């Protein structure tokens, strides 16, 4: 709590020290719909509305409200019986998440800042975070150095378990540099420190007559370093390349390569294609499912902490309707954006054990409208 209070002071000191300049805060409304669906019967329907309102030349605020509906099956874990599949269908379970956010924004052209609060409520989980962002824009807008700090104090509310906290602090440093009139690069480093109940309370393993809940270490410290490059190949075509290396003290390390190509088809339409590859190593406490014992210090069941690869391929569109205004909307100020991504993991024994599928194959769909009112 003391750290939260200290964090609250930062934006006050920061905004009090601001200088004069010109703002680029726009009055912007973004409404988006998202779905995720995969072969393990996990489905997410999500909708979010974000509003940015300019209050004065340099000040503004942001409001957002998101609602997720999540449904899935309750699988049967059977690794203790030797890892063989049983074909029992789990019962369907659902959850919903509501996550509002409020932030204060400042932008004078050289100093860009935001400070806000985020809440997330679910049936069995409450998330609450404070975040502060500051970006210093230099060199005629060609260089920008940013820092972002967030402090979260979340809480599990699981029936049959004592309520427990999951606290998380993240620090992000970023450096953005324009390379040419047609290319720019960004370097981002993030440190995430988590402590508390980091296990998934819904994950368990049956070992003989005993049902053992997942038990993971109560502290984790991870670093991510990412480099992004955007360049114009031709007047109508841009190329995006991103690489991220992640490493933490659970001995998980990963590499992510993300590429995308966008091409203007006309003044109104832009189409994009995307390929992403991700690979990660085992956590140090991972043991084969058949070797897990009731008395083990750590019991890891979630495939997320094991070695696997993922592949993502997608298409994306942007459409500027134009055509003047109607009574309610000025279509010249609107942009429609959307995309479809197909996602698959490599084969994994832990996925097979929990979901009864060799791998996870899913699809993500997003449709959004941005409106500068």
């Amino acid at each position, binding site marked *: 709590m003391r750290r939260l209070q200290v964090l609250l002071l930062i934006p006050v000191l920061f905004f009090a020290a601001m200088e004069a300049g010109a703002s680029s805060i726009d009055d912007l409304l973004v409404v*988006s719909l*998202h779905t*995720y669906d995969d072969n393990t019967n996990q489905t997410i329907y999500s909708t*979010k509305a974000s509003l940015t309102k300019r209050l004065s030349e340099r000040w503004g605020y942001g409001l957002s409200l998101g609602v997720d509906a999540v449904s899935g099956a309750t699988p049967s874990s059977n690794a203790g019986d030797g890892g063989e599949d049983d074909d029992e269908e789990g019962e369907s379970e659902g*959850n919903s*998440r509501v996550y509002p956010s409020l932030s204060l924004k400042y932008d004078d052209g050289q100093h860009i800042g935001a400070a806000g609060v*985020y*809440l*997330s409520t679910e049936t*069995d*989980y409450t*998330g609450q975070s404070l975040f502060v962002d500051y970006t*210093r824009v*230099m*060199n*005629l*807008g*060609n*260089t920008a*150095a*940013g*820092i*972002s700090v*967030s402090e*979260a104090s979340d809480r599990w509310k699981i029936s049959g378990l004592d309520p427990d906290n*999951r606290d998380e602090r993240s620090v*992000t*440093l*970023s450096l*953005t540099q324009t390379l040419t*009139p047609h290319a*720019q690069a*960004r370097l*981002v480093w*993030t*440190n995430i420190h988590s402590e508390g109940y980091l296990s998934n309370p819904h994950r368990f393993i049956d070992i003989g007559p005993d049902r053992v809940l997942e038990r993971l270490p109560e502290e984790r410290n*991870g670093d991510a*370093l*990412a480099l992004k490059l955007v360049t*114009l190949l031709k007047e109508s075509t*841009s190329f995006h390349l991103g690489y*991220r290396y*992640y490493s933490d003290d659970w001995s*998980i390390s990963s590499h*992510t390569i993300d590429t995308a190509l*966008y091409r203007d088809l006309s003044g109104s339409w*832009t189409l*994009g294609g995307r390929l992403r590859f*991700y690979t990660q190593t085992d956590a140090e406490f991972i043991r084969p499912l058949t070797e897990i014992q009731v008395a083990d210090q750590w019991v890891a069941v979630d495939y*997320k902490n094991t070695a696997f690869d*993922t592949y993502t391929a997608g298409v*994306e569109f*942007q459409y500027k309707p134009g055509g003047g205004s109607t009574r309610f909307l000025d279509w010249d100020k609107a*942009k429609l*954006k959307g*995309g479809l991504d197909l*996602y698959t*993991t490599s084969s994994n024994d832990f996925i097979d054990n929990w979901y009864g599928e060799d791998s996870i194959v899913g699809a*993500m769909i*997003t449709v959004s409208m941005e409106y500068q009112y």
Partner: protein
Amino acid sequence: MIMTRFFLLLALIISLASVTACSSRLVRVQPYERESLAQDKMLFTPSTAKAAFDEHVFSIMEASRGGEASFQGGCGCR
């Protein structure tokens, strides 16, 4: 842990000071040359709504997080 944070803060201050001091010697693309860079397809995240949802799903499905400039709040699905 305190020493780690001290060195982190020191590195941050030195980095920002260096970038600030050297920024005038870095590439200077003039404002009238930034037409291409201002296009949506040249943004690091051409669709912020899609990028935020994608990152949320990836953070649920994979062990790694971070490296994004945008804030991602906590949830029980991780």
